[in-house]
């Protein structure tokens, strides 16, 4: 079996206990923004949690992206490098081409319940093989490789079998 073309989605969960300057900024500002943006869906503060607000008003699902705008500059400061994705050599990080912000849980009365996730989506990568608990990754224009440890936070979100000769199906036509 030859290499495959894949895209990865890497999930970073941030909550009250996550350390690091980036995580603290994302946590604090996304919580403050959630308190603002949720008001239109929760007049008189009848509901306490994000789950209750969405259950009562499904249009409150817009809170995922509206709250995400509030931390957009912090994510931009990552310079398209996914946090904590150093390869074994410690020299390289994976790059992402787009991201998505999600509220996992929150409460307007208890900031400790606030929990968010950032999903980082990579561009196309070559998946050469799986070695133990590592993905052996590469790119089309180089023989250099990157070994990424598999975890619950790493998903393959796009997959294409490549024909012999490493041409994509489109190029073969």
């Amino acid at each position, binding site marked *: 079996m030859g290499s495959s073309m894949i895209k990865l989605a890497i999930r970073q969960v941030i909550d009250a206990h996550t350390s690091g300057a980036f995580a603290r900024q994302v946590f604090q*500002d996304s919580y403050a923004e959630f*308190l603002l943006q949720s*008001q*239109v869906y929760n007049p008189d503060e009848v509901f306490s949690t994000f789950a209750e607000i969405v259950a009562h008003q499904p249009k409150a699902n817009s809170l995922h992206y509206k709250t995400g705008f509030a931390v957009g500059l912090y994510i931009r400061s990552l310079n398209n490098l996914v946090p904590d994705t150093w390869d074994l050599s410690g020299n390289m990080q994976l790059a992402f081409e787009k*991201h998505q912000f999600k509220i996992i849980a929150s409460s307007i009365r208890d900031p400790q319940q606030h929990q968010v996730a950032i999903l980082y989506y990579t561009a196309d990568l070559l998946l050469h093989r799986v070695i133990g608990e590592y993905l052996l990754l590469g790119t089309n224009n180089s023989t250099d490789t990157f070994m990424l440890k598999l975890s619950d936070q790493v998903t393959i979100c796009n997959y294409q079998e490549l024909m012999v000769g490493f041409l994509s199906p489109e190029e073969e036509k």
Partner: protein
Amino acid sequence: MENTRKKFLKQLFISATAVPVLIEACKKSDSTDPESGSSSGSCTVSPEETDGPYPLYTSRGSSIQRVDITDGKTGTPLHITINILNTNNSCQPLANARVDIWHCDKDGYYSGYSNRGYLGTQDNTALVFCRGLQYSDTAGQVKFTSIYPGWYEGRVTHIHAQVYVNDKLKCTTQIAFPDDVNTAVYKTTLYSAHGQNTSVTKNSADMVFSDSLSAELATVTASETSGYDLVHDIHIAG
């Protein structure tokens, strides 16, 4: 009693700039869905609230706190000025109010999520075009540089706006454009592919503006530079 009477009389003697004596302030939750419908209504004075946990939150990480909200989108230039006026202070300008606006691009598509329109489905999840927020200055004013919005099925041309004061949502509203300006813009080259809005032909037929147009219609005039100038007052109970 005396203070109440003085306050009442003070509110009567507001500036002589053709503002009616009794202004209805936009309320914070006319609709639970700001994307599809809300309008200003009667004034409700905000209750006393404690500060939130982050009283100094200034949106410093926001990717939409900017004046130019076009993000390279093509369209007729639109220079937006919104004045925030406080009905609890004789309609004087209110500084440091956070004003969020958002609208669709010239083809009727919003940033931030996937939406369908006359050009098919667009996944604009990663984008923030035509969204902005500003904090009002000492003149109670916020300004944005944008493009003239397009339209989408079922709604007339509009800009969404929300106003927060001291972390409290004061107003969820929409801003309407004069019918004749919409007609003129949608005849021009950039907008002619979508053309005139045949789904809702005028503001008085719109499900949001039909009963509240006088409060929500902006003043839109041809700009000295290019495009149009939009000026609108939003009254809030600050």
